[in-house]
């Protein structure tokens, strides 16, 4: 099912296109935004998001961040919902192969930059790695407070009562906090941040992570970051603390009990199986159980 792209040795780089597609001044502008974002963990830095050769919602923010930080010696991994071989991942990987010619991989440990949509790899990240998240909605309070002028003020004055209104609603209607993805976090004890639509299962992985975590929202024109070893705390109530989801079964391919599982429908009779969403992790578990 999985395979490393066979293009490792042959550079596919298109000489007509500037390295990593964006022009150098744009990359510099985005790098400045990234530096600011790293300096103020969790703060949303506005940046001049560019038109990219794919539509908004396909990861234009993440792509611009990756394009600005990638160098010729980098090794890139791209995942979509944990998997290396889904449409979004394949296309973004091909985009960077064509515009940079860098080495690509599906191996989490071999990658220096991991661009992700909706997951954090199961294999723990290490120092020196960068994980780039694709963010659709950077503002965690947007649902209850649509005025951006107001949400910026709420961030500035650290008025975060609204976030708990959201959780309160969940508890009132379902008896438990039903948000399962994009679960809001408090970064470095200061800014409330949307972790992008990763499952809340992945939230604890952000806490004190040795890798640099960068978030790019292309349509909303925002970049934010969590520097290595920064506290990331998921919100909750004293009597209803944050919890991650658990499954009744193990992965049917690798037998893992620790990973985030996808429910896959097998046939028209509704037969289903649970498999790891992280395809790289799953295949490694199958080799060395």
């Amino acid at each position, binding site marked *: 099912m999985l395979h490393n792209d066979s293009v490792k040795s042959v550079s596919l780089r298109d000489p007509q296109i500037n390295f990593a597609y964006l022009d150098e001044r744009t990359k510099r502008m985005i790098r400045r935004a990234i530096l600011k974002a790293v300096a103020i963990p969790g703060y949303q830095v506005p940046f001049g998001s560019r038109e990219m050769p794919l539509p908004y919602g396909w990861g234009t923010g993440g792509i611009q961040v990756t394009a600005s930080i990638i160098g010729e010696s980098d090794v890139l991994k791209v995942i979509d919902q944990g998997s290396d071989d889904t449409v979004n991942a394949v296309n973004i990987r091909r985009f960077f192969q064509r515009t940079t010619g860098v080495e690509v991989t599906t191996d989490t440990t071999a990658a220096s930059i991991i661009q992700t949509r909706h997951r954090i790899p199961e294999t723990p990240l290490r120092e020196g790695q960068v994980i780039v998240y694709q963010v659709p909605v950077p503002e965690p309070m947007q649902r209850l407070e649509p005025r951006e002028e107001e949400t910026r003020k709420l961030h500035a*004055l650290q*008025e975060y009562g609204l976030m*708990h209104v959201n959780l*309160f609603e969940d508890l*009132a*209607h379902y008896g438990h906090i039903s948000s399962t993805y994009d679960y809001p976090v408090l970064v470095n004890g200061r800014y409330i941040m949307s972790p992008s639509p990763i499952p809340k299962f992945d939230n604890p992985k952000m806490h004190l992570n040795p890798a640099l975590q960068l978030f790019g929202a292309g349509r909303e024109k925002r970049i934010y970051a969590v520097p290595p070893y920064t506290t990331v705390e998921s919100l*909750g*109530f004293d*009597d209803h603390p944050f919890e991650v989801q658990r499954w009744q079964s193990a992965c049917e391919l690798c037998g893992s009990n620790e990973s985030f599982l996808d429910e896959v429908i097998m046939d028209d009779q509704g037969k289903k199986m649970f498999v790891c969403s992280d395809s790289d992790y799953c295949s490694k578990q199958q080799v060395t159980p």
Partner: protein
Amino acid sequence: MMDLDTKPPLMRVQGLSCAYGSKTVVRNISFDLWPGEVLAIVGESGSGKTTLLNAVAARHTPSAGQVSFDLRDHGLQEIYGMSEAQRRMLARTDWGFVHQNAADGLRMNVSAGANVSERLMALGQRNYGQLRAHAIDWLERVEISPSRIDDRPNTFSGGMRQRLQIARNLITQPRLVFMDEPTSGLDVSVQAKLLDMMRTLTRQMNLAAIIVTHDLAVARLLAQRMMVMQNGQAVETGLTDQVLDDPQHPYTQLLVSSVLQP
């Protein structure tokens, strides 16, 4: 009366003027408001009542004059001299603001319970059980059945919304509430019930209030003192009964005599 000489007023307004561009809509208003006192501001539409209310509630920066509030730990402080963070903190703890249209003061897309508890959560209360108990207590105090706690305000009637808005404001035990036409748009029986409830609550909590209204009956029922405004100026102030029973200014006389008697 002895208290009045020694303690500072709860709020002191001095020489307040508000202008929209070159048009001055509030001119040189001064008054003191004492703890537990209810002041009604009456006048016709366009007389500057609401602008005055917004200016003293730190919602509209005045063009001249001062508004000072007696902070719990710092005494009388000019509110426009505070930092915005302090001012907003004050507005959501020691103050309340009841809007004419309840939809402006409520979050219509979250449950009544969350609406009532929001201020407590903003102050850092993080125990869901306690927050909910508190919300139920307040819903009962404003005569909303606790069984409606998980319903959204858009399923509530106008009167219930207005009571919910009051509960949402009073849960932090504020000392001053601003009300902008709290009863207009409600039918008379609902109005009476709301007024009765507000009178009880202000007495119980020793709550001071500034109520903007064009309804003299509301002023009569709730307020100890009233201010009559015309063209942005306070043309007459005094005890409510005195002003209504023996109006001195021609405009007040006109206002009082225009009330329809059923």
